[in-house]
């Protein structure tokens, strides 16, 4: 959070001049999608000044490593920084850190002024919302104890790292990607880790049942204590009354925990869009060209609810994707939009998650599948599930099987098929049986 007052912000030494210069594009959210939007605009020749504004006190950084390499200490924080300061200066992009926008006044032509909690004002000609999502909070007794943590941004990761050294027992709540990645990292760091999952299987709807089951068995065989259909009832404090010491389950079981890490999903940050009167429904509603309902503001990445971009999806079907790949591809669409071009979303959505020695890569979206083909090479530790709809491959979950992943991703991108009957033999390379469908 910024600490300027309105008076300071208007002064000569610390902030903009009394009448602040208007930026050509104000990007709110110094996120993966915000960075990509600025970079793509410059690549397209967008000549106006860009302000890339974030509410954290860090230069824009990559999030995926926070639950993995950064937590484990195998990469330095500097490695997570997207671009050098020189890059931004050379490309006429102002980075603004630590400013939290609380209100935006906007005109019909798309221009306006954004007001920060510090009192600073940011006039703009066009506006982009790349504000992402925030961690969903678990509202139970003891939820505000020290050591009850979330993992969404760099400060969250730093808080977790600061506590890890003193902890023996960690309870992770939520068996999704973040929970399982962090649990694997913490286990590798020597912690006694228990994962509680409210639902009947891991990773919710992001993967199919076979993949969820594979991960359950694989993690259990690696010594991770995973409890399905299990909820925490309350967190109890140590003798000091401040720090968490245990998690009490619904059935009365008590698990010691000096750290509780909660990863139960995210909520899109739609507050500014709502204040602007934009259509909001599970995110900011945008058209195929990343334009919000006012026709001028773009909304990009995790926060955007967009028409499903995957070829062959049902007309009118909408989707909100939380991924690096989507942040990048959607930002490119928005960059075209802001430079007056109408370009459709390119590429096939893909995802990855690294958990212990399990490298999961997902190509496409499996919703609406009516058939699966399992390819399992136990000896080589490779596992893939291909998803089909009416005989056409639509997605694949691949564990330690990059060749399968690449074959499916490339086939989907080219509108090709991988016939199910031939795909069932794990000795067959999928690339060799791909057909023009």
């Amino acid at each position, binding site marked *: 959070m910024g600490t300027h007052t309105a008076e300071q912000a208007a002064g000569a030494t610390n902030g903009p001049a009394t009448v602040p210069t208007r930026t050509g594009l104000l990007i709110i959210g110094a996120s993966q999608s915000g960075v990509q939007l600025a970079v793509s605009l410059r690549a397209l020749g967008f000549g106006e000044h860009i302000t890339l504004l974030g509410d954290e006190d860090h230069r824009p950084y990559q999030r995926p490593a926070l639950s993995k390499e950064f937590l484990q200490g195998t990469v330095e924080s500097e490695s997570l920084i997207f671009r*050098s300061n020189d890059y931004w200066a050379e490309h006429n992009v102002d980075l603004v850190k630590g400013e939290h926008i609380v209100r935006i006044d906007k005109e019909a032509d798309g221009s306006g002024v954004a007001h920060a909690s510090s009192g600073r004002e940011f006039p703009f000609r066009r506006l982009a919302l790349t504000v992402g999502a925030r961690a969903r909070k678990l509202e139970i007794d003891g939820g505000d104890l020290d050591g009850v943590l979330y993992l969404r941004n760099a400060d969250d990761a730093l808080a977790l790292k600061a506590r890890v050294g003193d902890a023996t027992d960690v309870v992770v709540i939520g068996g999704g990607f973040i929970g399982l990645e962090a649990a694997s990292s913490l286990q590798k760091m020597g912690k006694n880790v228990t994962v509680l999952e409210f639902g009947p299987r891991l990773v919710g709807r992001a993967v199919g049942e076979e993949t969820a089951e594979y991960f359950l068995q694989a993690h259990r065989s690696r010594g991770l204590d995973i409890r399905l259909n299990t909820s925490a009832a309350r967190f109890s404090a140590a003798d000091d009354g401040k720090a968490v010491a245990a998690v009490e389950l619904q059935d009365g079981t008590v698990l010691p925990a000096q750290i509780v890490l909660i990863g139960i999903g995210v909520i899109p940050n739609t507050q500014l869009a709502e204040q602007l009167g934009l259509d909001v429904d599970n995110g900011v509603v945008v058209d195929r060209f990343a334009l919000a309902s006012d026709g001028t503001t773009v909304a990009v990445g995790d926060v955007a609810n967009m028409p499903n971009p995957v070829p062959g999806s049902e007309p009118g079907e909408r989707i909100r994707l939380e991924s690096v790949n989507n942040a990048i591809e959607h930002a490119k669409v928005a960059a075209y939009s802001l430079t007056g071009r109408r370009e459709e979303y390119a590429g096939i959505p893909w995802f990855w998650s690294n958990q212990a020695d399990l490298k999961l890569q997902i190509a496409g979206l499996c919703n609406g599948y009516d058939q699966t083909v399992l390819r399992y090479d136990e000896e080589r530790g490779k596992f893939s599930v291909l998803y089909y709809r009416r005989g056409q491959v639509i997605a694949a979950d691949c564990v330690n099987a990059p060749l399968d992943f690449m074959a499916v991703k490339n086939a989907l991108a080219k509108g090709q098929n991988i016939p199910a009957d031939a795909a069932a033999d794990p000795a067959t390379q999928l690339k060799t049986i791909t057909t023009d469908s």
Partner: protein
Amino acid sequence: MPTVHFTDAEGAVRDVQGNVGDSVMETAVRNGVPGIVAECGGSLSCATCHVFVREDCVSQLPPMEDMEDEMLYGTAVDREDNSRLSCQLRLTDGLELFVTTPETQV
């Protein structure tokens, strides 16, 4: 300082100085070398940091592990004998590396 000379598919050359221990991919991305995409940030998941290493530089580099080898079969431009994923190439003291970026990474 180690230096990486990036030549793009059209022949334009960009020389970038990097830090010992950083990867060739990181060095490229931080400085906005356009021929390197690196969607996954170096976790060996996307194969969009493909480079062709000049033949006389190949021996200065660490050998390829299986995962990199497999990922290279999925690059947008087909692999050659001198293909590497630049996220797997760490800069060492005094390294002078010449690489060419493919026409496209995605």
